[in-house]
């Protein structure tokens, strides 16, 4: 298990961790503010997703060191997400359809 590559697992300066740490705080605050200012509709959803993805990206790339990993592992980890994206797309359409038929055929509020 021990790899003979001590040189390559060079550590990173503490500054970058503190920076990212700070940024995560800032972006979390922003996403919280989305709720605080009670944005609605498309604006709300896109802001939520935007901040979510930025935070996720920072955590994965810096804290989890993915930024410094070789493409082999990065690609292996990210491509399977396409399956999830397909699943998300299909289920979005599916739930819309379900809602549509329910609203059409069923009495609400009983």
């Amino acid at each position, binding site marked *: 298990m021990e790899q003979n590559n001590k040189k390559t697992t060079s550590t990173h300066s503490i500054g970058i961790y503190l920076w990212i740490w700070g940024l995560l705080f800032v972006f979390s605050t922003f996403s919280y503010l989305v709720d605080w200012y009670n944005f609605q509709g498309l604006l709300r959803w896109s802001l939520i997703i935007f901040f979510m993805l930025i935070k996720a990206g920072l955590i994965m790339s810096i804290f989890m060191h993915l930024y410094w990993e070789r493409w082999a592992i990065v690609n292996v980890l990210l491509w399977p997400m396409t399956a999830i994206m397909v699943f998300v797309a299909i289920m979005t359409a*599916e739930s819309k*359809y379900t809602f549509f038929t329910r609203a059409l055929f069923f009495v609400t509020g009983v």
Partner: protein
Amino acid sequence: MDNEYNNNKIETKAADSSSGSYVPPADNIPASEIPEQELYHAKSFWTRWVFCQDAKVIGVQYALTATAVGLIGLVLSWGMRLQLGFPETFSFLGPATYYQSVTMHGMIMVVYLLTALFLGGFGNYLIPLMVGARDMVFPYLNMVSFWMFLVAVLVLISSFFVPGGPTGAGWTLYPPQAILPGTPGSEMGIVLMLVSLSLFVIGFTMGGLNYVITILQARTRGMTLMRMPLTIWGIFTATVLALLAFPALFVACIMMTLDNLLGTSFFMPEIFTMGEQLGTTGGSPILFQHLFWFFGHPEVYIVALPAFGIVSDLISVHARKNIFGYRMMVWAIVIIGALSFVVWAHHMYVSGMNPYFGFFFATTTLIIAVPTAIKVYNWVLTLWRGNIHLTIPMLFSLGFIVTFVNGGITGLFLGNVIIDIPLSDTYFVVAHFHMVMGIAPLMVIFGAIYHWFPLISGRHLNQTLGKIHFWISFIGAYAIYFPMHYLGFIGVPRRYYEMYDSPYMTTGVGLNQFITVAALIVGFTQILFLYNIIHSAFYGEKSEKNPWKANSLEWHTPEMPPAHGNFGKDLPVVYRWPYDFSVPGIDREYIPQHVAPSEVPTAKVEKT
């Protein structure tokens, strides 16, 4: 404490440190990147045979457990066939018992037999040997994986003995019926089934991580991915599929357990049953179906891909010819694996999902036929201009090709959404999946057992019994399922306990009796096979080393059967793919993977 580990740090004889004699540049193999693996050497009976950390023993444990449950599944199928062929003859077979048999039969066969046997059994045994590793990367975790599997099996079996019996919800476990009282086993049976599946997933994940990392990170020097035997490619891709697909099953199991035990409404809409309101609101049964088939379709390829891989190796070795189009074969496996995540809803064409999904899923489903077709072509083209030994593994491989093409083609019927409308949920589907999953991969399993039995036990299986076993199993199974398609055309729905009061179904009476008789004959033939295994393990003809003259590493261990650590003092170094049979320009008939180019300088081999 240290001396129970042999830190047999080998002095690597990398080509660059060649001592004196001339080594042609082709022999250049990079130095080892990974240090020698520490092995835990067993000291007592318990740690050697029971809580063993040797992947080979774990593989055998997996295989035996899977076979044992598989036999239960087989016996259950007899019960079903007796009822279908000769209804009202066997009083112990009521509708509830029938449905419980169908469910347990389906689930056992798919998950606990085939998945466990291919990945847990063959995977554990073959992966380290074939990629030139001493063991799985985390032997301890690997051991725990088997014990989780065993617990899952025991939980499953225990459901036969609880009040209400095992669940009779069909192996697809669709809610709401799976947890409502109109279905047999809705008391304890369904909960035990869900728990057992969850445990299976957890146990499998432990094993699966081992298989994947062993293949990716622990190959021997020279073993590039494109030099791995297709067996490993099949098992590898299947394992990746499993790691990504089982989560959906796991989630569905958790949600259904909560629906059942806590009364949540994940999958339960407003329901009025047995004269009363249930009190659940707003859930969606279709959501379960999506989750189930997001797992379920990859699952059928999880049991098919290892079979594809193994059969490629069997055909190549026994036809003494390189596998045709190796690269295409590898890409086909990978593409099939990737595509299998975007076709799942072809099981839901008639489920009432958004009707426009039909277009998307029919297209993706039929696209999958293209890489699969390439594999089929390459198998038969491997036979072309080969020198075919009609050994038992070869016979089973031929049987596989016929049944798989047949079953695959009926898959094309079902995949084309409009054709699925009349055929869905009829015996046509039953025939399709038995052909392609019940028979084809089982043929490969049998062939593989005849092929690798000498490696595992040092003895051959009896050939005469083997031939009888093959012919009865193959022709018999074909006779069971080929005519069954036509029941589907008549319109006989599946999961019908009894079907003879409908005018057009009566025409199927004779056919059903014939199928039942054939199924019983085939079933009993397996006893012959079991006898063959047990008898030959002790008294079989002793096998010489590498009896089939194969090239892959597992046959070239210092001892046969291979010892703990697999390869003695030095790990082999690999210089070529495992398919160098009948190479021109040289008098050897085959060149094992670890033979250096300098040893066979005149061979005109393709560069791999």
